[in-house]
């Protein structure tokens, strides 16, 4: 464990027991989040990135179940903590920002109340007036114009970007050590997306928090992240610092992904696409899960590769790099 490690996940497995079979949504994932970094989790739909982020504070609903693993946060295993203790961490030490701000905010309460409630839950000795004042200060911090008036308005009176700022305000209300942002800008327009990303980055610097950013947009990854984890079908295939990942991608899936995204600032003659489609999570291919789509398939690929260190801070799970 590094000195500057905030959160360490070891061999996390989350399975969903459905009628059709067992969905191994997260299958043996190990990684760490360092203090003060923005860590991106990238992957396509259904690769388990959202489920994994929720499992960190045990927010998996049946038929899903955390089968095994450890989540060490400041040395405490969150998966073994009693629910009462975990509630003190959720929302105070670790907070979440979700994709769709419209469904996160309760339409019956004002925007300011959402923030005030979060503060009050973890500081029950505070008076409501103090808490309301704090909510308005936080609103100012997330750059909501006219915070006094906006705190009294209801979610339906706010635009999409404003709502997401309110959600971010609730997430930072208790100055958490870790903010988990699950596709925070997917529902927003590009110009607003840039504003929100900028906000998340400046808040992270101000509070020296860590951010775990879940996204499928490689552009967002390149813009804001420090380190990147690439997931495919419930497994981590590659971990690297962002410049390293974009200049020297190792895993064939990462390579394919990077070449499949059209870049608006550069004309390419032809995009390289990854052949085939994401496997059915109930009936996964044997061995490496990418092998049916992989252009460099070897005999060995029928066995499962491990995530190994290729160079400093660069891990890959592929037989091509087995030495």
């Amino acid at each position: 464990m590094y000195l500057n490690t905030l959160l360490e996940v070891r061999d996390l497995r989350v399975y969903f027991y459905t009628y059709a079979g067992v969905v191994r949504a997260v299958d043996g994932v190990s990684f760490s989040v360092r203090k003060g970094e923005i860590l991106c989790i990238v992957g396509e739909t259904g690769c388990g990135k959202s489920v994994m982020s929720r499992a960190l504070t045990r927010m998996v609903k049946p038929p899903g179940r955390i089968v095994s693993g450890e989540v060490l946060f400041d040395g405490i295993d969150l998966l073994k903590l009693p629910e009462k203790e975990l509630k003190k961490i959720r929302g105070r030490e670790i907070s979440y920002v979700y994709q769709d701000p419209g469904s996160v905010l309760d339409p019956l309460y004002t925007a300011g109340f959402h923030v005030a409630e979060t503060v009050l839950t973890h500081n029950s000795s505070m008076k409501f007036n103090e808490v309301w004042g704090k909510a308005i200060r936080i609103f100012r911090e997330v750059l909501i114009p006219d915070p006094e008036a906006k705190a009294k308005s209801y979610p339906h009176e706010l635009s999409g970007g404003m709502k997401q700022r309110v959600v971010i305000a609730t997430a930072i209300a208790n100055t958490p050590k870790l903010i988990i942002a699950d596709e925070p800008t997917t529902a927003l327009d590009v110009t607003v997306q840039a504003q929100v990303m900028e906000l998340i980055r400046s808040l992270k610097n101000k509070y020296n928090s860590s951010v775990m950013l879940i996204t499928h947009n490689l552009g967002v990854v390149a813009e804001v992240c420090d380190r990147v984890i690439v997931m495919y079908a419930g497994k981590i295939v590659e971990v690297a610092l962002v410049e390293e990942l974009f200049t020297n991608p190792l895993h064939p899936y990462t390579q394919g992904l990077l070449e499949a995204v059209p870049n608006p600032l550069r004309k390419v003659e032809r995009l390289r696409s990854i052949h085939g489609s994401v496997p059915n999570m109930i009936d996964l291919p044997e061995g490496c899960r990418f092998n049916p789509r992989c252009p460099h398939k070897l005999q060995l690929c029928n066995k499962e590769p491990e995530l190994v260190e290729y160079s400093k801070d660069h891990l890959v799970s592929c037989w091509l790099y087995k030495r």
Partner: protein
Amino acid sequence: MSATKVVLKVKNLRKWFPVKGVFFTKGFVKAVDGVSFEAYEETTLAIVGESGCGKTTLARLILRLIEPDEGSIIYNGVDVMKLSGKKLMEFRRKTGIVFQDPYSSLNPRMTIYEILKEPLETHGMLKEIDINEYLVKLLEKVGLQKEHLYRYPHEFSGGQRQRIAIARALALSPELVVLDEPTSSLDVSVQAQMLNMLRDIQAADKLTYIFITHDLGIVRYLAHYVAVMYLGKIVEYGPVEEVFEKPLHPYTKVLLSAVPIPDPSIARSRARIKVIGEPPSPLNPPLGCRFHPRCPYALSDCSRREMSLVEVEKRHLVSCILYS
């Protein structure tokens, strides 16, 4: 692109949707408000803009799926607005559309065979062709096989469904295909397959595409011409390379500088033009230039004068006071 023949010419198209109050109409959503452009033969015209700028309404207007309030649509020299009966059928045969969401655009109770056969039946083309052979060829064109013919839509993934929707649009061998965000619900690896396929089909069948999207990367990759929309109006129109290398309208500049670039060395070193606020509601768009409240280069006159598109360079048009 050397092709210069104008296939589609849209002039001053307008569509306002009324917002009903209890007794009176409260106002209008000015979804498309005076849009003019041209599309050239065998090229792709991309229409880009943020959500709510009227791109989808425009797509439907072009094919007369909804009736415009005003304006004209000239297709190969014929005014589409004046067509009816057989002539209108003929126009419908020559045009196709692919919708954004492949989950709601395919009837769940019909097999793929029935879905693809329906347009042929409607246009009375079953007599001329061997239906089975024709449909298998059609499926192969979009990367599916003949065993897929008798399955239902729920048996396919999102990417495959979109292939079926594309096959349906191509069933009548159209000349003009409108693609309304065909890849926005797909994953990147599947999206790349789809974009390559669309490009190959265009080259093979000599199609003209109108491609509606909000993804500037796709525009750069696929399109020859681009029209940038903001709140129901086209603010800039021109050849893709020119618009991306030398954007003229402040909104185009802002859009290009806000879009995340999948390359950290560029993404972190480029200068950003910051823009304040969010797109206003199309119900009460700002007076004058619609972008002026957010524009970093706004002049005092911008709130008073509404500009129209002016040709600055050959086929490069912009609607901004700075270039008048």
